[in-house]
């Protein structure tokens, strides 16, 4: 995990702390009617405490599979996943998840959605109110606490989904193309909202995307995956200053990262066509 570059900001050095998530030789073979599909070849990587990691790869390369294995929603065919040094068993509240599809509880208000996990755990109403207020403010949805999901735009729904995951105080936040269904403008805004929430919550985040700009803008490290069967191809540390603003996307450093990643991903996309 030691990066050769050490001249960037304090935040980066914080990340060089202890490993938060260790993925060791994790592979996945799906058995289907037509035979076996290797969705993921044996893959290993480590994420440090507080690190923001994005996984970038062409569609169908096994990104969701990695994330679902970490979440405990899918069982790995080989290898194991350690969170804070302990093996994971099935899904649990220590690993929060945000999906691409909207997964708010439609019968609950924004506020009830955000505090759903807390309520399951028997946290008192007063404490839930406090947590809800905090996260509503963090994601910029004050005044919407009594709204139902159907009354929200796609971007707002994903803000609530992020708040709901964070309010549960997980050890790591797993995000599977959470902005994939949003239009470009909203997507850009959501990236900034997420960075703000990350900065404030100091969470470790594993974020999946097939959008190159998004992967650079958000990440401390971008992992590029190969086309099917998926495997990690390269780790690209992103040494742009934090906190990042939208304007960083116009810098030459950003363009250089983009070029590097684009060429890596193009090779893979060509293979997968």
């Amino acid at each position, binding site marked *: 995990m030691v990066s050769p570059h050490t001249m960037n900001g304090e935040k980066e050095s914080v990340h060089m702390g202890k490993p938060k998530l260790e993925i060791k030789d994790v592979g996945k073979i799906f058995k289907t009617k037509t035979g076996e599909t290797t969705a993921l070849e044996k893959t290993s990587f480590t994420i440090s405490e507080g690190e923001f990691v994005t996984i970038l790869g062409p569609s169908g390369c096994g990104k969701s599979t990695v994330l679902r294995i970490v*979440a*405990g*929603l899918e069982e790995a065919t080989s290898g194991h996943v350690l969170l804070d040094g302990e093996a994971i068993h*099935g*899904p*649990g*509240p220590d*690993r*929060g*998840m945000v*999906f691409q*599809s909207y*997964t708010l*509880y*439609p*019968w*609950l208000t924004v506020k009830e959605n955000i505090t*759903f*996990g807390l309520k*399951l*755990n028997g946290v008192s109403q007063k404490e839930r109110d406090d947590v809800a207020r905090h996260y509503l403010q963090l994601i910029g949805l004050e005044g919407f606490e009594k709204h*139902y*999901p*159907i*009354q929200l735009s796609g971007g707002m729904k994903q803000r609530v*989904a992020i708040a*709901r*995951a964070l309010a*549960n105080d*997980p050890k790591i936040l*797993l995000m599977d193309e959470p902005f994939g269904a949003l239009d470009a403008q909203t997507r850009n805004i959501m990236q900034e909202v997420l960075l703000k929430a990350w900065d404030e919550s100091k969470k470790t985040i594993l974020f999946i995307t097939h959008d190159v700009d998004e992967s650079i803008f958000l990440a401390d490290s971008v992992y590029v995956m190969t086309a099917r069967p998926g495997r990690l191809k390269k780790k690209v540390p992103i040494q742009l200053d934090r906190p990042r603003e939208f304007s960083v996307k116009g810098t030459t450093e950003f363009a250089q990262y983009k070029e590097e990643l684009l060429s890596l991903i193009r090779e893979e996309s060509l293979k997968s066509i």
Partner: protein
Amino acid sequence: MFTPNKEIPKTIYTSAGFLTFIIFLVIWSVLTYGGVVNALFLPTPTTVLATAIDLFANGSLLSDIGISFSRVLVGFLVAAAIGIPLGILMGSLRIMEGAFEPIIGFIRYMPASAFIPLLILWIGLGEAEKMSVIFLGTFFQLTLMIMDVTKNVQNELIEVSYTLGAKKVQLFTKVILPAALPGIVDTLRITFGWAWTYLVVAEIVGASSGLGYMIMQASRFLQPDKIIVGIIIIGLLGLLTDMIFKAIYRASFSWMRKDGL
């Protein structure tokens, strides 16, 4: 007005419904007042109305309605009380689906009326037998429909609930049940409608009261006006319960509407 899926003003929508009823009445009137058909087979609307008033005032119509309603209601409630939890379990646990889907799928094609002789042998001619017919007529369909509704709960909603710390029981009570509830209420509305259609079947044999019994008696004594009154009343009762379910649906699931009203 004739573009598919295009909204039309509410007044036109309602008027169209009324118009259909009126056309129906006109055809009936022409056939009867015009003497096209024998009054012995099809009485005039006024005769039917007079019979209805007479039955309400002097006959046992009200108590017949009461007894029929209680049979339908109890038979249906028992079917729902077993069918809802069973359907939810079948829709969410593969083992339950594997165990019950084949047998329910098999029995549901057997006509409820064919069970009447057996039911009489087993439990006699009392109320329980009538209610059992209603039960048999609705239970199997209801259970399978609830299963489907439960299966349609978005899988990722269940997955995200696990990552929020939901335990298995909580998953049923806090996620699957509320997510499936609108579909469940709608299923109840539809199957309650079917329960009414089994009423006459239930009251054909060994009954001495109820709307079905009244209709069978009227048939025996060649009283088509009485038969029609009975049929219309069953229709109206069905319509009424349908409207009650729709009102419950509207009142309970405001979160499904953008305006929240």
